[in-house]
């Protein structure tokens, strides 16, 4: 039976990009649909009734949601070019850093992006503390996955292009080369890796989009209290 693989994502979502990356890295044939989140398709609503969010992978009609869940599913279903190592301890470590990326890095960077004034200063401080753990983890490694790209690299990969976008919009450097030499080198190496480098959404379009997302937070902070 022919495989039918469909990916629901958006042009800009870093979560959708993860799923896009793994399918490309594994050489899986798939179709994708860039959703308009202001007008969600019946297929999206039906495939992810719990969150109604992208990405959703639909494999032979069966939907899988949540990008990190999708990554593991794809890795287990298409065994070429494995993302997770065989050893259970190394697998646990990869999952740990992917989760750290989600729970701590993403949240702290987002706060640094949307908060204003003193709150932003504190948020930036917290983000830098979080990033230090990533810098430490990269010691002696080319990628979080070791010699080649692994689960944690795909989970953290959004840093490689979105950090630049956020920095441009808020006018603050979050990942300075002097402070984060390993992380900076990883971002560059990841960004230029085969498959990854062809996938980045257009930079200017992202800047415009995120500037617009930030606007209401700036406006709210400017209100007299």
């Amino acid at each position, binding site marked *: 039976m022919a495989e039918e693989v469909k990916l629901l994502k958006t042009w800009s979502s870093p979560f959708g990009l993860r799923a896009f990356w793994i399918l490309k890295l594994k050489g899986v044939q798939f179709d994708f649909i860039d959703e308009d989140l202001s007008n969600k398709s019946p297929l999206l609503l039906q495939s992810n009734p719990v969150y109604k969010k992208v990405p959703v992978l639909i494999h032979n009609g069966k939907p*899988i949601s949540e990008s*990190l869940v999708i990554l593991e*599913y794809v890795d*287990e279903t298409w065994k070429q070019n494995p993302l997770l190592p065989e050893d*259970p301890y190394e697998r*646990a470590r990869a*999952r*740990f850093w992917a989760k750290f990326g989600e729970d701590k890095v993403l949240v702290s960077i987002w706060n640094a992006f949307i908060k204003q004034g003193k709150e932003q200063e504190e948020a930036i401080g917290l983000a830098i503390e979080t990033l230090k753990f990533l810098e430490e983890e990269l010691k002696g490694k080319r990628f979080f996955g070791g010699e080649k790209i692994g689960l944690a690299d795909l989970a953290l990969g959004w840093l490689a292009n979105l950090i630049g976008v956020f920095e441009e919009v808020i006018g603050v450097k979050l990942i300075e080369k002097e402070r984060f030499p390993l992380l900076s080198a990883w971002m560059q190496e990841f960004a230029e890796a085969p498959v990854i480098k062809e996938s980045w959404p257009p930079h200017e379009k992202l800047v415009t989009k995120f500037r617009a997302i930030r606007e209401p937070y700036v406006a709210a902070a400017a209100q007299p209290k």
Partner: protein
Amino acid sequence: MADEVILLDFWASMFGIRVRIALAEKGIKYEYKEQDLFNKSPLLLQMNPVHKKIPVLIHNGKSVCESSIIVQYIDEVWKDKAPLLPYDPYQRAQARFWADFIDKKMYDTSRKTWATKGEEQEAAKKEFIEVLKTLGGELGDKPFFGGDNFGYVDLCLIPYYCWFYSYETFGKFSVEAECPKFIAWVTRCLQRETVAKALPDEKKVFEFVSVLREKIRVE
């Protein structure tokens, strides 16, 4: 060489309970080390420098952190007995999805049912019941989330049950009244010795939550 398995944990932690159930399901002998979360031990800080939290599993000197990751690790290492995750990749993905849903939704919402008051508490109660109803929808007519057998999702969720008495008492509501099917599932889980032994007494948890509420000055 004999395995050395140590669990750093806190008696009332719903996350730690998950690991205790997983270890029991697999029949793994381990040393339990109760942690003082208000005065963290050097061992805990050394084994989980990033989060400084329990549970931490130390297997032959190497630490594994984050309860859902620990449970998957246990399932993969001791794979010849009592599988916790399904074999089929699609079913595994569904199990991971629902465990992630539980992690995203249960803790913060349930905490607010006892740690807040007034409108915030009312909103938290509503949301908490909605979360249980969504989970109930997923359970459907199956005996367990895992189907016929107790599995990963059941294990991730059931530890919250020993906190329900606290949520219901401070929040003034009844889970059984709102979600009777959910309580039926709880009863089935509690029939498993591994689960019944791992859950602490709900009245002890209530005493602990009462102390916490004082500490954070809810009233």
